[in-house]
């Protein structure tokens, strides 16, 4: 079995990992925590309404400053992770360097639009509470 290549910038002995891989892993680990909080808070805590919140429940929930911050971080982190994952999948098609650049730029744009729309959604709902 061939030994993993060494990153010249990395300390001796550290496996070669690209910046993309590091960000994917970092956001992925953060998402384990954030998804757990999101799922438990939304669907497991509110037994009285069967795990689904009423309209007013949702507004009150999102207007809580702590929840607002957590959900905002969740939105940003999950979008970064999703775009990096999509990038890896698309790169599996064996794209040329030029097409890889186009895909990367396109995914940055899609990510920005996604986060912007999510913030508008969260902001509007929080303002209605």
């Amino acid at each position, binding site marked *: *079995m*061939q030994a993993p290549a060494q990153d010249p910038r990395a300390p001796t002995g*550290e*496996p070669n*990992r690209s910046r993309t*891989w590091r960000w994917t*892993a970092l956001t*992925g*680990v953060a*998402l*384990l925590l954030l*998804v757990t909080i999101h*799922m438990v808070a939304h*669907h*497991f805590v509110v*037994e*009285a*309404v*069967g*795990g*689904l919140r*009423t*309209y*007013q429940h*949702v507004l009150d929930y999102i207007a809580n400053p702590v929840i607002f911050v957590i959900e905002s971080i969740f939105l940003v982190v*999950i*979008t970064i992770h*999703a775009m990096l*994952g*999509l990038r890896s*999948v698309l790169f*599996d*098609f*064996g794209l040329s360097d030029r097409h890889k650049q186009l895909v990367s730029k396109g995914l940055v744009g899609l990510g920005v639009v*996604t986060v912007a*729309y*999510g913030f508008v*959604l969260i902001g*509007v*709902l929080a303002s209605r509470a």
Partner: protein
Amino acid sequence: MSERRTEDQTPSGVEEILRVRSAEGPVERKSPGPTAWFDVRRRGTGHFAFSLNRITGLGLVFYLYLHLAVLSQLLGGEAAWNGFLETATTPLFLGLDVLLVFGLLAHGLNGLRVALIGSGFVPNRQKALFYTLMTFGAILLIYSAIHVFTAEG
């Protein structure tokens, strides 16, 4: 596109596919593209885990946008949201919730395995770690499925 198809149909293209399929080593060397995710011939646990991560990942990206679209119903006010809630509590949609939990657990726990091994935090025990985490995930999935179908009011 047609030029590439012609090239793949030549004997050298076939030989290249056969060569990468039989190659020893990491999954990526065997994979000529995403179609290889579904090719289970002469593949081990590593390939299965890799394919599972890719497929569940794509499913979760689709769900991310579906979730944003569903939450947009809230912008339509209480009536629009209540209409959605009636649909969301039907058995079919509860089943899709369980499918979502499956995707989250499979992708999350498998991703954790990749991150732990890839970063060097745990020794390279890919197969043992994969089966341990998937067993843990199966237990959580059963608990979640029971919760989803019994907590519905």
